[in-house]
């Protein structure tokens, strides 16, 4: 599962539309699911489930008709399309509302409906553009859980375009960061989160001045965070004894000790600001 990140106007939606062949590209070639791109965009669209960012619906239809119609457009025969639409609505937690006209749906309901429409033909690749927009916290968690299920248990590839970094952190394995139309970062979330040097993150109780002094004397480099916590650079997980010893010697109480990870927010801001400076 890949998260597509980038500030507004960085080209995320354009990239998605290009992949689907909705926007003509001037140069570049590639393949999507092994299908040559951009030559066979129609075949690609047949295998992709797309959840657009925009609030879009087919006026006049009710929920189940909308999903069944999308199934028909993807080639599912009439009755089979309707049966499948009911099944996917159940999966997406669209209950009796499926019989209401889509115009009367709330933003969250429309989001779930679009998700059902994207899934109805069982595509191997899902492109989800801001899938959690307009959902309340419970529904957001449920939506992310569904996405996780589809990716982890059913082996679907997912491209998740979002501004919500929490969503990326909770479901994605890889991240692509776009700034001004070009890829700034492409890596796994694990690699991105890992600091360049082994670092331990400590939360302490009381005044840490003596403890910091002691560690500096021992040759460690220390960064103090805004919240008062410390990042001790150059300490492997198997070297934590030195930290415990220093804490005992300076009468400092350690509340929490864990390997430090880079914050995705910071990576995002850094990449975006570098792009702007450039």
């Amino acid at each position, binding site marked *: 599962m890949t998260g597509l990140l980038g500030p507004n106007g960085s080209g995320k939606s354009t990239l998605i539309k290009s992949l689907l062949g909705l926007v003509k590209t001037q140069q570049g070639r590639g393949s999507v699911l092994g299908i040559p791109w951009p030559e066979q965009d129609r075949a690609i669209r047949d295998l992709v489930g797309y959840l657009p960012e925009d609030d879009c619906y087919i006026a006049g239809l009710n929920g189940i008709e909308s999903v069944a119609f999308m199934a028909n457009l*993807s*080639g599912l025969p009439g009755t089979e399309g309707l049966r499948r639409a009911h099944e996917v609505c159940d999966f997406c937690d669209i209950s009796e509302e499926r019989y209401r006209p889509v115009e009367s749906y709330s933003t969250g309901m429309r989001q779930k409906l679009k998700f059902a429409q994207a899934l109805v033909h069982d595509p191997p690749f899902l492109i989800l553009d801001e899938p959690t927009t307009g959902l309340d916290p419970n529904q957001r968690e449920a939506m992310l859980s569904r996405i996780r299920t589809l990716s982890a248990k059913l082996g679907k590839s997912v491209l998740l375009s979002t501004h919500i970094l929490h969503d990326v952190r909770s479901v994605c394995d890889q991240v692509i960061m776009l700034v001004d139309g070009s890829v700034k970062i492409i890596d796994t979330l694990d690699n991105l989160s890992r600091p360049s040097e082994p670092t331990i993150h400590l939360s302490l109780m009381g005044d840490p001045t003596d403890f910091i002094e002691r560690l500096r004397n021992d040759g460690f480099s220390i960064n103090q965070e805004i919240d008062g916590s410390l990042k001790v650079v150059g300490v492997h997980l198997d070297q934590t004894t030195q930290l415990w010893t220093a804490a005992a010697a300076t009468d400092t109480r350690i509340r929490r000790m864990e390997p430090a990870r880079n914050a995705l927010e910071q990576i995002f801001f850094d990449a975006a600001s570098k792009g702007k400076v450039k």
Partner: protein
Amino acid sequence: MPIHDLGYRPWNGYRTAPLLRPIFVAKSGISLVWRRRWLRLMLMLSWIPIIFPAMGIFAFEYSSSDPEMKGFVTQLISGPMRRPDLAYVAMTDPDAARHEVWSTLILTFFRYPQLCAMVLLVGLIAPMLISYDLRSKAYLLYFSRPLRPMEYIAGKAAVLCFFLTATITFPALILYFLGILLSPSLSVVVDTWDIPLRIMAATLVLVIPTTSLALCYSSLTSESRYATISWFATWILGIVAYQILTFMRVLSGPGRGRRARALAETSIDFDRYRLLSPYHTLGKVESWCFGLDPTPGSVWPAFLVLLVITFGGIWIVRRRILARLSV
């Protein structure tokens, strides 16, 4: 959670060919329009005028055996149908006049009640076909599937074609077959076999440019009411402009009596301003399809205008859709 909820299940069934998918666009559009009660009522009402030409055909076929009927038919053809020459032939040699009388009656049915019904029907259905999709951004959903803009347009056009066929072609064909059933002998089929083909040709002439124009108006705005206004304005202004320019000479002429006006009418060039009015342009080509073109001007300028409207309309719709997708 419903007790029948089985979670997500993969699907790997048979898929219809991509080329058949515009049918689903048409099917969905037809079913949406069909839900409107006023439309079903309008369709029923649009079939009522079939009675009058059917009675005309019935009267013509029985005029050879009934002298009273003969007088009525002669009056009908020379009066309301304005064909005294045909009335004379019908009186002296009904078999020779049969094809022309039938064609004239069916063309009259095509030209007046059904064309008006068509303008009304398209004006109420067509504006919402694409403008609603633009307003609700439904085009993103359509084109996330393997559907090309031209297939989408074909699907939307099929909605209009379906209702226009139901309003115009079916009644005209029924009128023809009713005429055969009301005739004393089935031998009339030999004289009139080509009329259903002419009906089909006239249908194509009517349906294709009007559909293209209506979809074009619908694609130009996301407010369907503006498309409706433009549609009706095109027809009304066209007719008014044509009538004013053509009959100005008659109205401003020296003669005040009916005879003087009739004389002036014979010298009017009906083809000169015809292309200003879609109604009269269509009328010219339809009359040509039935072999009844009464005016001396060539049909090709009118035909060309209809072609330009057709291809121009489709080009604009396609451009509008592609422009929306690239945003």
